[in-house]
């Protein structure tokens, strides 16, 4: 049994998980239309690869970017593309973004799968398959998986960690996945082991999920893997964060500015693992995911395997509709790190692990009055990144952004532990998020102004150079003229060329008149 370490801080929270675990894993029906945003990953937007009016099959690539093909968007079902337009998307701004709209035809006809001979594929070829399936991290960070695997392979991975922790309250999609699709996760672990060749593998699951641990253990006995153990870890939020999980399992800390694979540790979410299995075994790209629909305002909370692009309103209907009225908020994510959505027409994307349907009272719409900071440092006690949230608060509030960076603002994982314990109810995480936005915007503006300065200075130089060249030319011309006018040995001054030309014209005119 592995000896576990502690993270600094963290909180024991009420899970609110039981309600959405009652009904197992349900399959969501297809809605009438699917809305696929062009970007569902960390990185730049994809470009549409299909046209309006085109009929697409399930699994066909409909958007990709040549620079990063590994985060392509595939059609989740067969249908006709009816529009490529701005549509509300899952983003805290509530803004719209370009989406491909598919009118579902109901046939669910798929592209012919090309089944690979998995036993004889090289790791590089396996990564290529994962790339073409558009798989990104389904734990919430949506980082494209195949570049991560390639990089990990190059750096050398010592320990593979399968992240089934799911520490945030309300979210249960990974729990359900492990209970009902444990075999897929275990097989994916095997594939990852063959790609990365780690020395040990830990499958980390929080100890509030005994059924999931049992299911995974059974799947592991049926499909044994070398040096692999299932590791239950204590239920403390935010143990599921990559940096915290690394610390719990190995006692090591990911150094500043680096990621886990830089120190030989590779983390993968169980949802991503299931997607990897489907991609490798069935040539099925990432077109669906398990989504938890829960909250105090939904009639029948549960977990659904839903196609990407399904509007949340469709899932709310499947879950029995609103328990009270529809005036409350929808939050994508859990209660600690989720963000409110603009409405229920927003579609499910690769990052949508949970949709909380909440009553108006539970989630405030406008900031209430909060007290001043009394410097009690409860926030410092609970911060898993070992920061000084109090100092970050003072400086973020004063807009002293350089000072916030001195206190390592960008090491903040925005887990929300500090805001939760603050007796003055200060919205700390919002201050940090706003400060980070301002710093990023200022960096962008600085980059732009530096670029403009370079162009301006170059222009000045160009004009200066032109002036010099003009002067130089004029000087040479003047010298040449002077030389011509005073040729040595010739007393007689040269005839004025202008006068000579005028005389020639007069003479020609006279001749013309005489003719």
């Amino acid at each position, binding site marked *: 049994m592995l000896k576990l370490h502690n993270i600094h801080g963290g909180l024991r929270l009420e899970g609110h998980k039981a309600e959405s675990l009652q009904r197992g894993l349900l399959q969501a029906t297809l809605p009438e239309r699917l809305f696929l945003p062009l970007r569902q990953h960390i990185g730049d937007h994809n470009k549409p690869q299909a046209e309006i009016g085109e009929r697409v099959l399930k699994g066909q690539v409909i958007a990709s970017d040549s620079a990063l093909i590994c985060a392509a968007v595939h059609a989740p079902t067969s249908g006709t593309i009816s529009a490529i337009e701005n549509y509300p998307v899952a983003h805290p701004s509530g803004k719209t973004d370009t989406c491909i709209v598919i009118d579902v035809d109901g046939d669910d006809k798929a592209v012919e799968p090309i089944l690979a001979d998995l036993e004889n594929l090289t790791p590089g070829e396996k990564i290529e398959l994962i790339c073409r399936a558009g798989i990104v991290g389904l734990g919430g960070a949506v980082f494209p998986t195949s570049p991560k695997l390639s990089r990990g392979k190059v750096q050398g991975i010592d320990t593979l960690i399968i992240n089934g922790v799911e520490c945030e309250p309300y979210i249960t999609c990974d729990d359900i996945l492990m209970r009902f699709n444990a075999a897929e996760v275990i097989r994916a672990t095997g594939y990852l082991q063959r790609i990365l060749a780690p020395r040990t593998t830990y499958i980390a699951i929080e100890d509030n999920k005994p059924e999931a641990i049992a299911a995974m253990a059974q799947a592991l006995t049926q499909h044994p893997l070398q040096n692999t153990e299932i590791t239950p870890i204590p239920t403390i939020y935010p143990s599921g964060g990559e940096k915290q999980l690394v610390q719990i399992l190995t006692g090591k800390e990911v150094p500043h500015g680096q990621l886990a694979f830089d120190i030989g540790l590779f983390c993968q979410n169980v949802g991503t693992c299931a997607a990897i299995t489907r991609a490798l075994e069935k040539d099925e790209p990432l077109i669906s995911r398990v989504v938890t629909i829960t909250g105090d305002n939904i009639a029948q909370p549960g977990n659904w395997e839903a196609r990407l692009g399904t509007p949340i309103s469709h899932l709310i209907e499947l879950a029995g509709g609103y328990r009270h009225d529809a005036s409350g908020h929808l939050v994508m994510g859990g209660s600690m790190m989720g963000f409110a959505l603009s409405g229920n027409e927003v579609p499910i994307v690769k990052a949508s692990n949970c949709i909380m349907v909440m009553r108006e009272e539970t989630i405030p719409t406008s900031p*209430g*009055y*909060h007290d*001043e900071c009394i410097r009690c440092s409860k926030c410092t006690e609970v911060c898993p990144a070992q920061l000084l949230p109090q100092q970050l608060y003072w400086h973020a509030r004063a807009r002293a952004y350089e000072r916030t960076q001195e206190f390592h603002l960008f090491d903040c994982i925005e887990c929300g532990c500090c805001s939760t314990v603050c007796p003055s109810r*200060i919205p700390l995480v919002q*201050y940090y998020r706003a400060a980070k*936005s301002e710093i990023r915007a200022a960096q962008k503006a600085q980059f732009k102004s*530096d670029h*403009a300065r370079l162009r*301006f200075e170059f222009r000045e130089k160009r004009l200066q150079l032109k002036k010099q060249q003009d002067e130089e030319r004029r000087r040479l011309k003047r010298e040449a003229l002077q030389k011509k006018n005073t040729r040595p040995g010739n007393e007689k001054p040269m005839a004025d060329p202008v006068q000579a030309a005028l005389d020639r014209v007069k003479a020609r005119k006279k001749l013309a008149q005489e003719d």
Partner: protein
Amino acid sequence: MFVAIFTISLMAGVFGLILGYAAIRFKVEGNPIVDQIDALLPQTQCGQCTYAGCRPYAEAIANGEAPINQCPPGGQATIVALASLLDTEVLDLNAEHGEHLEVPLLAVIDEQTCIGCTLCIQACPVDAILGAAKQMHTVIADECTGCELCLPPCPVDCIDMVPTEQSIDDWKWSAPLDPLELAQDA
């Protein structure tokens, strides 16, 4: 008493020599503070500060001739940064020089009206206008800083200033309201 006078004079002489040597040996060419001030200005070269560009304004600030609050494109953020650099008081933007626009404007040439005279190309401080004599002119959107120096020279007034589109990536989290402001509504 004479010993005291002698000692103090000697010390003064020695320190004076050290200072003189240091002034020559460690002399810094140019005026680095001007570069630092210029680095904080937005480089639109628009002239709204009444100086002929960002660098002349930076030099004026360094000489103490100009206050730090005359740059509308830089806005309050630039004023705060300058105040922090120069260790002076933060002032409010001087409204006489213009207002700070949250959403920057871009110049757009109306191609129906453009006569290809190249006067705007000569005016643009960052060479953001593409074109030649008797050829269609167009503004390269990525390079345009919104300084509006191309508007006056255009003889047919075919350039419009259009607000840039704020994409989803430009969105910023808003900071929580100050408790004092909230309190007055409570």
